[in-house]
């Protein structure tokens, strides 16, 4: 205890920096009060950012359930139990450093002492997040607390409502009569629920229309017709004055300021929500006069160690009653806890729902409050359709809209708010063309998923960079579509457009030449023993092949047989870079990357690389994978460059291949005073083991010598982190546009166990992944996910471990440096001729200019002045041609 107190005291000296800095490796405690939707997202964001390496996260929730999907609450009546409402991956709560206490309320907060009281006991915190959400507000109407009156907020509320309706139904022997007070979003949800339970339902609304906050008068009218058409009675402009009890104290009648009384057996109050800010009030934190814990753009309350997120928070001077803004706040706080600078900008309040089978959507400036804005309205009272778009004064930019009766265009329209609509506005509103123009027009910056703040660009990138090929993959990768789901059709459209653009066939087929997936093709090749593309095409495909199936076949043949990429027919299958075993750059020259295993290089080696770069006039840059990239090599120079490198003991780095790239390492226990294992030694061994392994996409590994993780191993496909007992293995990480942290796969392995586990993991991936699918989406796509893969790798659940081991042993035993082999074979060397009739002549169109002491390709404008070739003297290579 005293140690804990001391820690707390030291930090309290500087309240604005209440949070530990990066060098401070002591663990701190984060208490989260409330275990609702936003609390869950906060924990998820923290785990993704690996904050648990520094924070112990204690989450207290008053409800007995783990956080569930409150947005989908109404669907609970159709489900078998609360588990089905659970959000995301339940394993989140098993993450080391995270503890969820359900059925445990935080009773009070002492901000000065930095303690909370839980179960009568004090707990210290270094940072506290209030995520207590809202409670359902019941208006001060006489009789509102009678038996048979309910609110609509939690699973327990719904259980109680259902029990009451079924009990009354049995006792009365007739349909139960129900009323919902409140005709807004929540009220219509509740009316839907009552109808599902078989109740005759009346909705009572004080305003002159349904959903007054979201839709305008015209929309409200269409909505009323639709709702009435479904057998739900609607009374608008009606104030409830009293609820009357029968002899047993149960509701029996409602009376109103105007109009006839209504006989009822059950009443649901859905008249709005109020922030549960009582903890903050008790702790003396600033609250808004109308409720809500006051917080700044960092979501920090008047006490810098206390944050508020979700419906309890009053940020930008208002409370936000939707889950999307809450999620954004959770991300902001996660970032802040790690020393970031994220802020909460005003959020999107668009809504779309399907209530009683009726579509309602409202987005952007739904009421046309922007000065001089124009409205385009399509209304069909008979069909109950009402659609309105709000446009800028020149009718070009979409500002907002209301859709009632048919909201199919919502997914396409909402992301366009603030952007040109493109085409005739009427095209979006007419019944037959509700899809409007295609997603092609959507700018990358447009938000597609407002719940999770995901842009069109991010979705497109998930396809092009992460190899996602289905909606499930994109959801896993970007979180788009994982909350309210209204954006899923849009996400799907974007996905399909992007797949088509990338030439990726939707469905299993690899391309028009093979009706097989990559995994199926792999098995065909493995089982049939086919060793050439022409045989494969003749037996299982059609046509001449293409830039999709040829490289896939080349990769499969290389994975299985370790034969040279330029041997025989295979020379005509290799993609851009494999074609000459170097990376093609924008001007058609290449970059060259010798392998530097584990990033360990001798001074002599460095000198050779420098000398080669100097002699051939190459631009040099250090890569992120701890090696050196040499740019600007012409095709006919490659053999000469490599003969120098090979002579000095270097070999191909496979920077050009869909294959193992690097095993990044920190310096580890050999030098570092914190290291517990020899990370460099292991990295070198792993890199030498897997070098040359051809795979569906590039593979990167990392090894850190202790939990400080200086090698950023968890950003790799396979990450290894040293422990006192051995090695922890993580899988499925990557950098790039949609970075992913690798997940823990196995703990405290010996080196031998570790190597076997990586062998099998990689081989299983090589055999079963889709083309251009990295390990993260692959892990998601395997049925059963990471647990299933763990079972295959560690417990041999499929009985293929021996086979995978044999395949990896064959790879390791059969490895030969491709470049050394090329240099020995005149037939292969002929493929590096610049021109078949002038093998040593440089491409006369290449032009360079100096920059920061090196050369770079001239731009189009510069080429106008730099006439006739290289400006830097380039020594002609006396290559073996």
């Amino acid at each position, binding site marked *: 205890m005293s140690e804990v107190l001391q820690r707390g005291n030291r930090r309290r000296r500087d309240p604005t920096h209440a949070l530990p800095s990066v060098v401070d490796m002591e663990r701190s405690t984060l208490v989260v009060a409330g275990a609702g939707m936003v609390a869950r997202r906060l924990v998820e964001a923290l785990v993704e950012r690996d904050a648990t390496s520094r924070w112990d996260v204690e989450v207290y929730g008053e409800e007995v359930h783990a956080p569930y999907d409150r947005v989908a609450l109404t669907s609970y009546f159709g489900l078998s139990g609360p588990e089905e409402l659970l959000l995301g991956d339940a394993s989140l709560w098993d993450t080391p450093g995270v503890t969820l206490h359900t059925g445990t309320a935080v009773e009070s907060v002492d901000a000065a002492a930095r303690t909370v009281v839980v179960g009568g006991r004090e707990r210290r915190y270094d940072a506290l997040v209030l995520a207590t959400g809202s409670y359902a507000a019941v208006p001060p109407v006489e009789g509102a607390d009678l038996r048979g009156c309910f609110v609509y907020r939690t699973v327990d509320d719904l259980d109680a409502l259902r029990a009451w309706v079924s009990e009354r139904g049995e006792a009365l022997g007739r349909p139960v009569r129900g009323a919902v007070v409140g005709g807004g979003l929540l009220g219509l949800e509740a009316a839907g629920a009552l109808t599902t339970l078989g109740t005759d339902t009346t909705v009572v609304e004080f305003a002159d229309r349904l959903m007054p906050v979201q839709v305008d008068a015209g929309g409200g009218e269409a909505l009323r017709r639709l709702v009435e058409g479904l057998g739900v009675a609607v009374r608008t402009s009606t104030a409830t004055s009293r609820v009357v009890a029968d002899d047993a104290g149960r509701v029996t009648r409602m009376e109103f300021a105007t109009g006839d009384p209504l006989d009822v057996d059950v009443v649901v109050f859905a008249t709005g929500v109020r922030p549960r800010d009582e903890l903050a009030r008790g702790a003396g934190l600033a609250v808004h006069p109308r409720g809500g814990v006051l917080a700044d753009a960092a979501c920090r309350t008047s006490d810098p160690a206390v944050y508020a997120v979700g419906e309890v928070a009053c940020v930008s001077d208002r409370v936000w009653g939707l889950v999307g803004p809450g999620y954004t706040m959770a991300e902001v706080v996660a970032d802040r806890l790690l020393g970031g600078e994220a802020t909460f900008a005003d959020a999107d309040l668009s809504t779309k729902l399907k209530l009683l089978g009726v579509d309602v959507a409202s987005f952007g400036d739904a009421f046309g409050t922007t000065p001089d804005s124009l409205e385009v309205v399509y209304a069909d009272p008979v069909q109950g359709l009402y659609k309105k778009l709000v446009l800028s004064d020149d009718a070009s930019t979409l500002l907002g809209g209301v859709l009632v009766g048919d909201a199919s265009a919502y997914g396409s329209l909402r992301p366009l708010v603030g952007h040109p609509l493109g085409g005739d506005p009427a095209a979006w509103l007419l019944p037959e063309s509700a899809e409007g123009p295609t997603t092609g027009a959507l700018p990358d910056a447009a938000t597609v998923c407002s719940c999770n703040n995901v842009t069109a660009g991010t979705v497109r990138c998930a396809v092009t960079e992460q190899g996602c090929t289905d909606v499930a993959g994109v959801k896993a990768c970007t979180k788009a579509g994982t909350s309210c789901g209204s954006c899923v059709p849009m996400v799907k459209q974007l996905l399909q457009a992007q797949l088509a653009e990338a030439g990726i066939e939707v469905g299993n087929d690899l391309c028009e*030449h093979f009706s097989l997936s990559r995994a199926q093709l792999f098995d065909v090749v493995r089982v049939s023993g086919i060793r050439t593309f022409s045989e494969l095409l003749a037996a299982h495909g059609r046509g*001449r092949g293409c*830039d999709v199936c*040829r490289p896939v076949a080349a990769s499969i043949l290389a994975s299985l047989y370790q034969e040279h990429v330029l041997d025989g027919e295979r020379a005509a299958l290799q993609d851009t870079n494999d074609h000459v075993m170097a990376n093609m750059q924008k001007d*058609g020259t290449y970059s060259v990357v010798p392998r530097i295993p584990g990033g360990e290089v001798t001074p002599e080696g460095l000198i050779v690389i420098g000398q080669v770069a100097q002699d051939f006039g190459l631009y040099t840059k250090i890569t992120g994978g701890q090696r050196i990239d040499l740019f600007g090599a012409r*095709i006919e120079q490659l053999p000469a460059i490599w003969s120098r490198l090979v002579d000095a003991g270097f070999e191909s780095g496979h920077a050009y291949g869909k294959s193992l790239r690097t095993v990044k390492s920190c310096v580890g226990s050999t030098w570092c005073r914190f290291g517990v294992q020899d990370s460099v030694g292991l990295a070198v061994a792993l890199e030498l083991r897997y070098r040359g392994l051809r795979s569906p996409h590039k593979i990167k590994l990392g090894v850190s010598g202790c939990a400080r993780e200086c090698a950023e191993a968890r950003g790799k496909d396979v990450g290894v982190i040293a422990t006192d007992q051995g090695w922890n293995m993580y899988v499925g990480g990557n950098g790039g546009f949609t970075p992913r942290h690798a997940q823990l796969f196995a703990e405290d392995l010996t080196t031998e166990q570790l190597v076997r586990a990586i062998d099998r993991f990689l081989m299983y991936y090589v055999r079963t992944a889709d083309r251009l699918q990295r390990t993260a989406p692959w892990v998601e796509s395997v049925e059963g996910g990471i647990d299933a893969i763990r079972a295959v790798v560690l417990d041999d659940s499929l009985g293929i471990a021996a086979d995978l081991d044999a395949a990896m042993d064959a790879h390791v035993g059969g490895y030969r440096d491709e470049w050394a082999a090329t240099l020995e074979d005149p037939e292969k060397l002929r493929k590096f001729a*610049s*021109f078949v*009739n002038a093998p040593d002549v440089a491409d006369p169109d290449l032009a360079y200019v100096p920059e920061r002491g090196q050369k770079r390709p001239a731009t189009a404008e510069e080429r106008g002045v730099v006439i006739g070739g290289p400006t830097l003297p380039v020594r002609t290579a006396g290559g073996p041609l």
Partner: protein
Amino acid sequence: MTTFLDAPDAPPTLVPVCRLDDLHPDRGAAALVDGRQVALFRLADTDEVRAVSHRDPFTGANVIARGLVGSRGDVPIIVSPLHKQAFDLRTGRCLDDPDVSLDTYTVDVVDGVVHVGVPQTG
């Protein structure tokens, strides 16, 4: 008139470039023909040779010979190695952008020697 527009001024001059055996089936090779950079492709299934310009019209880089040969439907194609646009090997037309095309050249194989036709100028 029409006849005049369609016909070249004079038949192209055929220049010997390399032996057929120098061309690896389905793997392109660049050639310098009368100062022009030409990409040659010997198709594996029919053994015919096709010649198009070596310059990628989308980037200006001379790389077309280093692309992959294949087919789309019945069309024999070459795919640019830089940004993967496909071109019809018979007409040079880009299948992904109708406004762009490669130049095409006549090819004649005589006694195992590949000749490429360059248009006569002037």
